[in-house]
């Protein structure tokens, strides 16, 4: 499981030629810590990290909102054609991204959002995956509490906000986490939606070490390893919410 990462880190510290040695080197003989500085200054990675962070944060906030509300409606509210409409929503997940790329780009371009954060974020605000997840989650949560609130005459939005949403923290944490990761790892959309070098994201930066004819393995791996760090921190942080979820639902 860890071998590929071991290889990544090890390679990121190797001299360019050492990568190719046979039999393969497990560890760099002389760790080249300079690779990290070299890779991260070869392109403006400071700016790229900021861009990725803004992009991913915007996407997370948008997806949390839309997934929670829509997921709640699909799971807890009765309305005409619910299942059919859900299948319609789900079907938008089945469209290959490469197809919607062009119309989406032309759209944000017409709106004057080309090369801006707004343009970058706007297309990613809804995750059908997230809606589906919330639907499943809300369905598996017992409805006693909501029914109690309903009997008290609370409005549906109030029930959603004060009763159901707090119960959904594990699912929300999951969606937030994956929304962040997806945005962070997205390569094609930021590439297409941005023009200037200052608007690129980390993933685009990593890919740019992979030239048409010439590759720089250690630099690319150094950049890739660095890019993992923020998400792993986020992951360890959201861990607590999964644990909290256990306590919340387990009290009955």
């Amino acid at each position, binding site marked *: 499981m860890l071998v590929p990462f071991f290889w990544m880190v090890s390679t990121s510290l190797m001299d*360019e*030629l050492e*990568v*190719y*040695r*046979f039999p393969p080197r497990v560890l760099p003989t002389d760790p080249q810590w300079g690779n990290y500085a070299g890779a991260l200054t*070869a*392109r403006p990675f400071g700016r790229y990290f900021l861009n990725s962070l803004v992009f991913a944060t915007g996407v997370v906030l948008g997806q949390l909102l839309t997934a929670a509300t829509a997921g709640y409606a699909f799971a807890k509210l009765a309305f005409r054609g619910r299942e059919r409409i859900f299948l319609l929503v789900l079907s938008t997940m089945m469209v290959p991204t490469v197809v919607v790329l*062009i119309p989406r*780009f*032309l759209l944000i*371009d017409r709106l004057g959002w*080309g090369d801006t954060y707004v343009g970058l974020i706007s297309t990613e605000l809804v995750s059908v995956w997230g809606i589906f997840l919330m639907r499943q989650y809300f369905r598996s949560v017992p409805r006693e509490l909501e029914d109690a609130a309903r009997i008290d005459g609370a409005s549906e939005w109030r029930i959603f906000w004060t009763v159901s949403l707090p119960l959904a923290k594990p699912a929300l944490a999951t969606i937030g986490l994956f929304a962040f990761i997806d945005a962070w790892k997205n*390569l*094609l959309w930021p*590439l*297409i939606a941005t*023009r*200037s*070098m200052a608007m690129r994201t980390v993933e*685009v930066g990593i*890919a*740019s*070490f*992979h*030239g*048409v*004819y*010439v*590759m*720089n*393995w250690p*630099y690319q791996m150094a950049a890739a390893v660095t890019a993992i760090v923020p998400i792993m921190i986020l992951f360890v942080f959201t861990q607590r919410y999964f644990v909290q979820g256990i306590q919340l639902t387990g009290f009955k």
Partner: protein
Amino acid sequence: MTRHTLGVALATLTLVTGCNRQDGRGGAVTLRVMNWATELELTAEQRIADTFAARHPGVRVTVESIVTNYGEKLVTAIASGLPPDVFLLDAPDIPTFVERGLVLDLAPYVQRVGYDTSAAFPRVLAIFRRGARLFALPKGFTPLVIYYNRRLFAELGVPLPSDTGWTWEQFLATARALTRDLDGDGRTDIFAVNFPRQLYEWIPWVWSAGGDILDPQGTRTVGYLDSDPTVATLEFLTSLVTEHGVAPPIQFLRSGDPMRVGRFYIGRQAMLISGHWHMPRLLAYARRGDLEIGVAPIPHREGAAAQTVIYASGWAVPANVRHKRLAVELAAFLAGEEAQRMRAESGLEIPALEAVARAVAARDTLDIEAAFLREVRGARPPWGARVMDFHEIEEMSLDIMDRHLLRGDPVRAAAAEVAQAIDRVIAR
């Protein structure tokens, strides 16, 4: 007054066409240059752009480097009506853009902007020409050659290849002498050469056998791709793997197995079929004493003349550019001598201007650059620079040798079938 009218004009334009863009506002002009520079070239390109901007008050030049998915990005930019002012055009993309009328003919302007066409290598310039028209000013180029590891040749006691050319038989004899199982475990430790699987690597072998893959007009492959000299070439190349075992077992990964160059870098492969792109790396390794390299031509079949291929890239201007004069001036500057000198240090391509290339060669104590320049004589432009849909032809042609190596299909039969399939695509 002028300002005012300009403002009105722009405002009207915005209202009427809805396609006014940020540039041109407030009198300052921003020119966008698009290329695929990696970190090896980016600094130089940025410096060149800054130099141009410094000489043109009120002009800003931004460099947009797109390393992966360059084609997608360029095409999207053009489709959305916002192309860069100057962009780097790869030889295989010439038909795609030129035949659709998307690229400005620079021929009427070259003299005005002080670009001396006679200073460029004629064969390189010719790649971007159509009749009297010229669609890009060449940046750099490379012929396809064979690098060899001098030290390994010496250690194994194999004579170096001649600068003036060698036959298949001489090449094969050399290759066999270089292939070694050092520890006697039955596995080859040092291979002679990488297997040229992609069309861009094997096309000069075909030419150097007197064959070709398309008719002179570039309209059909039947009778060419499956002709005797072409089939003989592909058989010879696959035999390097199957019969002679001088090339490592087939490498089927995208952009090649990482080891196809790696093996050569670390001295486990004596020769490398490739272009000038590897020079920055190889020179760095040579300087610190890891490698000693030389360059030899592509071998030719007995009785045929050696002929290699030149790959090139050039600076093009979109046909509907907004600031034609500035854009053309910028393209000329990017391709001009001063820029070429600034760029030459990165060494990824051979400068397209003869004087600059010669100066680089003169500085090169290893004599490798001179060997590259020798190859330019008699080299041909690639088919991709002439033929529409060449990407697809290239892709489909992979099947010929793959089928032979993986399934044992005879090369001739596979070539005939693939040629027919390609012709169907061309006819569509």
